[in-house]
Structures are given as C-alpha cells and as structure tokens.
C-alpha cells in the first residue's frame, strides 16, 4: 500500500511539474510569437499541457491523502470531470476563435509559407 502511494505521489508531482513547465513555455510563446494564430497555439499549450495534466496529477496526489477518509475519492472524481471538460472545451474554443478570425480576415498570416484557405491573407 505504501509503495503504491509513493508511486502515485511521484507520478502526480511529475505531472504537476510538467504542467508548470508547460505554463512557462506557453507564456513565453504567447509573448514572443509573431502572429495571432501562433499565439493562439501557444495559449492552447497552456490550457491542455498546463491545466489538464496538473489537474490529473493533483487527483493522483489527492487519492493518497488518507486523512480525508472517504472524501479522498470525491476530490479526484471532481478533478477528473473538470479535466475532461477542459479537454473538450479548450480546443473547441480556440478552434472557434481561429476560424472566426480567419474568416473575418482580421489577422494576416505572417510570416507565411502557404495559406490554402485564403491565399490573400498570406504574407
């Protein structure tokens, strides 16, 4: 039982660290990338790697806290539901943003190699 708890804590902490690293990478990308679509990509890195994985890590750690009694199963349940919802909603939201901006021709694709959807927006 103790070894299983140790493994859960280690995996959970690793996921939390991964989330922190991804959040920093996402913030740097959000600040440095050249155009709207690349910055949107960086923001999505922050929502999936930076919040879904840490949520699952927190769920794994919460299972091992024996002081919570039976409630230690409620916490991971709620966390995993939240993670699944974020996993569904974040890509749909960024997809809607990118599609809307591209169709409304608000942001140019720059620098650009090819834009098959709307060649006029390239460059």
């Amino acid at each position: 039982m103790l070894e299983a708890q140790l493994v859960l804590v280690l995996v959970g902490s690793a996921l939390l660290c991964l989330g922190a690293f991804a959040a920093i990478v996402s913030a740097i990308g959000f600040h440095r990338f050249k155009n709207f679509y690349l910055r949107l990509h960086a923001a999505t890195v922050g929502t999936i790697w930076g919040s879904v994985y840490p949520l699952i890590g927190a769920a794994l750690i919460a299972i091992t806290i024996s002081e919570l009694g039976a409630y230690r199963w409620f916490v991971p349940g709620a966390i995993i539901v939240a993670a699944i919802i974020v996993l569904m909603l974040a890509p749909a939201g960024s997809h809607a943003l990118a599609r809307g901006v591209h169709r409304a021709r608000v942001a140019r694709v720059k620098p650009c190699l090819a834009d098959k959807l709307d060649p006029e927006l390239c460059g």
Partner: protein
Amino acid sequence: MRLVEVIVLISTVLAVALLITVGFEHLVPSERVRPVAEFYLNATYNQYELRNYTAMSPEAVTAIVWDFRGLDTLFETSVFYLALIAGLALTRGLLLERAEKSGHGLSIIVRTVTRITAPMIVAVGASIGLHGHLTPGGGFQGGSVIAVLPMVVIVVFSASFLVIKGVTTTKLLVVRSLGLTGIGLTAIAVFLVGITLHMPAYVFQNMAKPDAQISMPYSVAGALISGTLWFFNIFEMFAVAAGFSIAFIALMLARTLESSRGE
C-alpha cells in the same frame, strides 16, 4: 520612455505595498465577531439553545438572505422582474416578427461540443440552486449558471435558433411569472396555515417563533431542506434562469434583425 515605464511600475508596486502595510489590520478580518454577526452565526443552525430563532440552515448567507431579511430579497427579485418587463417593452416590435431564417452558426466541432456540454451546464446550475441551503450559492447563482446555456446556444447556433425551436420569450415569461408566484406563495404559506388553524403566524415565517409556534418542516425523509429556504431557492432558480434567458434572446434577436435590415 523605457525609464518612465520602469519608474511608473516600481512606484505602483511600492504604493500597493504601502497600502497593504497600512491597511493590513482592516484587510485581515479580526477574530472578534460583532454581536449581530455572533447572533446570526449562533442562530443559523441551532435546534437546541435558540430553537425559536433558528433558520435550520448550515449556510448562514442563505439563512440571512431568505429568512432573517427575506422581505428585502423579495423586493430585489421584483425589481429585477420590473427591469425585465421594461426591456421586453422596449424590444416588443422586433420580437413580434417571427424569425424564420436560421443562420449557419459556428463549425461542426463547436456545435458538437456545445451539444455535449449543454446538459452539464444545466446540471451544475441545478446543483448550485438546489444545494443553496447547504453550500455557498443559491437560487440566483444557480439560475444565472443555467442562463449561460441560451447565451452559448445563441452564439454557437444562431440568434433565432431558440425561437425556431419553440423557446420563445412568451413561454419564458410564463416560467418567470410562475417562479415569482411560487416565491410569493412560499412567503405566505405558514401564514395561510396559521389562518386556517386559528393560530398566530407571520408572513415570511420559516421556523417557529416565541409567539407563533407553527413552523415549516426542516427536513423531509432525513434530508435537510431548511423549511422555506429550499422552496425559495428552487423558485428563484427558475425565475432567474428564465429572466436572464429572456434578456439574452431579446437583445441578440433585436440586434440580428437590426443588422439584417441594414444590409
């Protein structure tokens, strides 16, 4: 320019730090509780010592909002209702035109995700509203969460989608009025029982008072409902959800019709 920005940034940080240092005693709540707050905290769930003053609800905010000062909340709800009626009166000409053409809406990805998450939004709102007497939240908050659904549907599908599907402002207004009627009936329920039984009772009475010994049941089959609080919360949830939905539909439909006329 850079130097000015740095100076502004540093002085802002220092000013906030100074404010926090000076206002620390007021920012951090002290351990002393004022006598009024102490009374409410003792009375909110207390069936032994303060049997004649308790609201039988572990959530002190809901107990104060719907029991100790319930009349205030009733008038707040009516003010919101009147504001809604005024908004409907403002857009009445536009709403009578039946919207026939449905727009394209967003892409199939967004529409599918919306279809999946729509029941979840309602479930979260209902949970907040129905547990209002146990946990932070309540009817208004739960209703507001439910009202997010028509907003999302309007943005994702189209402004006239709800009206075409039969969710018209008239039907929502009926729901809203039924909710308000329910709130009113709950407020006078104990009073009516008192009249029938020839016993003294108050309007907005929840639990028994020293000179009025009638009280609502505070639990049903072992589940705590805190007397009138549960009924107030559920009716308020329906009323607020319908009210915000009417406002969203009216505003978005009016805006769409206006822009389509302009073209």
